[in-house]
């Protein structure tokens, strides 16, 4: 007697065989595989961020300084002075100067021996990115790289310098360190990596953004993929239910049917995951290097995240396998009552838009400005579904009527479909429109933060760098100053800025008569507070926190007192800041070189770089939302095309599907992309009107392009599938 097979095996096999029949050209198979691939990668991305963050924090803790107490032995102390520097168009980094006082002084993280006086160790990223600025020569003699275990990540910009002249124990700027590393009990990161950590994007914020921008759209993609081309599957489930099948049977059938596509999507994601685990990843756009070692250190977390994505996808597929009725889309036109209700809600859409866009300007510089903007934005988001539903119904009616008038079958079919099922169409395009509006909102808020950078860049472009500030902490010698000036290829006049050491005092420019004359400025032998500083350089004139008067005096004396130098090119051409920084090596003390006001630009760079993350993930999210809309709309199109197949097969007009699909798939997505972008750009106008950096037409173009690609790909694919299905149609081949 043969053994009765287990119901799970039987049902799984039924589903597995059914899955191979590939309804509608296997579109469900492919889209489900794609959604699983994207979902898994997104979960792995979050796990990867957590893993990298933990490892970065650990390495940051390893760089926390333990300061010497009064009982510390001198031989165990290393003197540390830290200075900020930056590359052009880059965020600041720290340069740590070390002078070990004895053989037991602790080596900083990433070094295995003390550099000799004058030697420099750089992080690989700083060496590479600063190559154009001769960064290897800026601080002394380049000796080697700080090893990766001494950096919080491979992209960290960091320099270790052992100065030619030892740091002094009695210098107030110098720290006495007896060890490196902390258990993190205080929760604060200080020491070697303090600045790098200060620049970090909030990890929780980044993950929250990824969940909203990537994970939720991926889940939506999984959901619509699981439902696409479901006609035959619905009938099967209905039949199994009628034959006495219970929910568990349906679930095992669904599992068998979806297993191959989900499995392939998951395996492809695993391939990518294993590749990244093996060699790491250089994230495009933002240029962040993910260390493979960091990821491997949290392999269980990453595998767990991947498994969780698999479980969630399976839950979605199984959750849908519980209906016992064949889903029939209502094709009755919307009732007048419902249309009226939709019209009322849709009527609030322009009102909300006006409240959000126009009203705030009447309440500038009051709390109502932002409140009205938000009220308008929320109103727009709430009224958008009804508006799009109504627009779809109206557009469908217009299209169908036009089809009747022009006797155009394509317009008639597409228009009738849109008119009869506006909610279904509106549902998938609403998600897209909302995604675009939210994308522009996020960009606008990030742009407010990053706008400083754009503005600072514009100032730099306008004023140039024919004036450079050189700050020395101590007095410098005339010889050092001459050697320094000689190291600059451009002709420079040396002026000084002196600030009196009393509260409320303003600073003055100190220049010799000869210098002023060479700068075409009339020389008066006494202090002249009325002299326009802008004549020296427009930038100095516009420098709000800068000097307010000119003192005619030999700047050498001020130099000896430790004033700040002002280098001015009498030919009013640009001075290369990296070259000045290189020449500053002539000083025996550590000096800071920058263009006046450049701190504005440098300080805002982290927000500017964070905006690139928002742009990257936002665009990826838009691409996924575009795919959701495209897949969902293709599902609607297949429902229409399968009903149309017998007629088009007989009439031999299957090529008309390109046009029908264009009206049902590509055009709604394209119009929604444009509309969502315009609404998004408009609604954020009150937020960006005072900001220099705002989502512009280029961003809008990219956003529309990203979404359109999904629509165009799906339009072509869906058309081909419909044509093939029609060409395969035969009398009696009813599904």
């Amino acid at each position, binding site marked *: 007697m043969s053994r009765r097979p287990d119901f799970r095996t039987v049902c799984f096999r039924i589903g597995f065989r059914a899955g191979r029949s590939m309804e509608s050209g296997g579109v469900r198979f492919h889209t489900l595989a794609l959604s699983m691939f994207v979902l898994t990668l997104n979960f792995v991305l979050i796990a990867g961020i957590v893993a990298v963050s933990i490892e970065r924090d650990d390495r940051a803790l390893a760089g926390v300084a333990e300061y010497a107490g009064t009982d510390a032995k001198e031989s165990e102390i290393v003197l540390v002075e830290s200075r900020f520097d930056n590359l052009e168009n880059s965020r600041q980094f720290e340069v740590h100067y070390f002078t070990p006082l004895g053989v037991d002084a602790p080596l900083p993280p990433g070094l295995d021996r003390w550099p000799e006086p004058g030697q420099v160790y750089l992080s690989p990223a700083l060496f590479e990115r600063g190559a154009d600025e001769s960064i290897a020569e800026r601080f002394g003699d380049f000796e080697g790289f700080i090893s990766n275990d001494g950096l919080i990540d491979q992209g960290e910009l960091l320099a270790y310098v052992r100065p030619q002249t030892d740091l002094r124990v009695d210098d107030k700027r110098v720290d006495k360190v007896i060890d490196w590393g902390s258990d993190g009990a205080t929760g604060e990161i200080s020491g070697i990596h303090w600045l790098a950590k200060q620049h970090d994007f909030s990890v929780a914020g980044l993950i929250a953004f990824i969940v909203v921008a990537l994970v939720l759209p991926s889940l939506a993609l999984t959901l619509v993929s699981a439902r696409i081309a479901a006609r035959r599957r619905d009938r099967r489930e209905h039949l199994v239910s009628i034959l006495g099948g219970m929910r568990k049977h349906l679930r095992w059938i669904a599992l068998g049917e979806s297993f191959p596509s989900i499995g392939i999507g998951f395996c492809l994601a695993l391939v990518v995951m294993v590749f990244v685990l093996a060699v790491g990843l250089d994230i495009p756009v933002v240029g962040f290097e993910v260390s493979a070692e960091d990821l491997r250190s949290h392999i269980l977390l990453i595998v767990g995240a991947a498994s969780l994505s698999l479980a969630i996808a399976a839950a979605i597929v199984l959750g849908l396998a519980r209906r016992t009725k064949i889903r029939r889309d209502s*094709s009755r*036109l919307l009732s007048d009552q419902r249309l009226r209700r939709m019209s009322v809600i849709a009527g609030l859409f322009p009102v909300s838009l006006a409240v959000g866009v126009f009203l705030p300007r009447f309440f500038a510089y009051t709390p109502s400005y932002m409140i009205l903007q938000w009220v308008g934005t929320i109103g727009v988001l709430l009224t958008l579904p009804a508006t799009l539903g109504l627009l779809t119904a109206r557009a469908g009616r217009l299209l169908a009527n036009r089809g*009747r008038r022009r006797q155009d079958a394509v317009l*008639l079919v597409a228009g009738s479909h849109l008119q009869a*099922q506006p909610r279904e169409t509106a549902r998938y395009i609403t998600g897209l429109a909302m995604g675009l509006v939210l994308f522009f909102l996020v960009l606008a808020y990030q742009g407010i933060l990053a706008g400083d950078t754009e503005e600072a860049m514009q100032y730099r472009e306008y004023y140039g760098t024919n004036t450079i500030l050189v700050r020395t902490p101590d007095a410098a010698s005339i010889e050092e100053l001459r050697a320094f000036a000689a190291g600059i290829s451009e002709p420079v006049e040396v002026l000084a800025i002196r600030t009196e050491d009393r509260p409320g005092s303003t600073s003055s420019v100190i220049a010799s008569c000869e210098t002023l004359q060479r700068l075409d400025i009339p020389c008066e032998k006494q202090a002249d507070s009325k002299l326009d500083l802008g004549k020296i350089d427009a930038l100095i004139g516009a420098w709000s926190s800068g000097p307010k008067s000119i003192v005619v005096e030999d700047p050498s004396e001020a130099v000896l007192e430790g004033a700040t130098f002002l280098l001015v090119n009498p030919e009013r051409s640009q001075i290369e800041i990296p070259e000045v920084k290189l020449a500053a090596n002539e000083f025996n003390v550590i000096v800071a070189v920058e263009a006046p006001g450049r701190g504005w630009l440098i300080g805002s760079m982290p927000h500017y770089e964070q905006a690139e993350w928002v742009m990257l993930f936002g665009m990826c999210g838009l691409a996924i939302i575009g795919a959701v809309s495209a897949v969902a709309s293709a599902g609607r199109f297949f429902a*229409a095309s399968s009903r149309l197949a*017998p007629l088009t097969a*007989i009439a*031999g007009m299957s090529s008309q599907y390109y046009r029908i699909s264009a009206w049902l798939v590509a055009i709604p997505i394209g119009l929604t992309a444009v509309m969502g972008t315009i609404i998004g750009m408009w609604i954020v106008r009150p937020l960006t009107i005072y900001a220099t950096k705002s989502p512009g037409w280029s961003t809008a173009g990219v956003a529309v392009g990203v979404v359109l690609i999904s629509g165009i790909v799906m339009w072509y694919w869906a058309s081909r599938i419909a044509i093939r299905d029609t060409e395969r149609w035969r009398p*009696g081949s009813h599904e």
Partner: protein
Amino acid sequence: MPSEVNVLAIADLNLKFRDRTIFDNLNLSVRDGESIAILGPSGSGKSSLLSIVLGLMAPTSGSIRIDGETMNGRSADDKAKIRADKIGMVFQFAELLPEMNPVDNVALPALLSKNTAMRDPYQRAGELLSELNVPLDVDTDSLSGGERQRTAVARALINEPRLVLADEPTGSLDQKSRDLVAELLYGLPRRYGCGMLIATHDLQVAQRADRIFQVENHRLESAGESA
């Protein structure tokens, strides 16, 4: 009385799938004004025969002529044009588009085939539906089974075909509707000047045809003629 003009002529038709013979030297002609029923159980080859007549399936050998025009050796586009111009088809499940009203459904084949000879497809669709007692100003979803099938019949007639094919046209109907639809269908050839080929497994429906054939031994054997 049917005329002597053949609207469908099938000669020496052979159809084989690998080692399986479906048709072996099958011959059939349908005259203008004549109705012919092909009787046979599911899987006997009725649908395959309709597919071959429609030019959607290529026979192993043999010739098919529709209203004097051969389907053999023609391109897919040419076959489609012959289908659109000369053939109307009634399906088992009516296959109406629910989002369109009955008039749109009936007019659709004329719009698809861009039948320029027709003055106004919508006017003709309305006339046909009125003749067949189908209400015009209703949703397709609200039509009864018989009304849906009559709408499908009107749609098959919209391009003034020379040949109407019907694939189990009463298969989805109750007995009353079945009788009404069958009566309507068999009246078409004389009323609209065309030939009709009905594939059915229902003997009662088949018996109303001018001639009845049964698929036996891969050929069509006469199973009787109407009185």
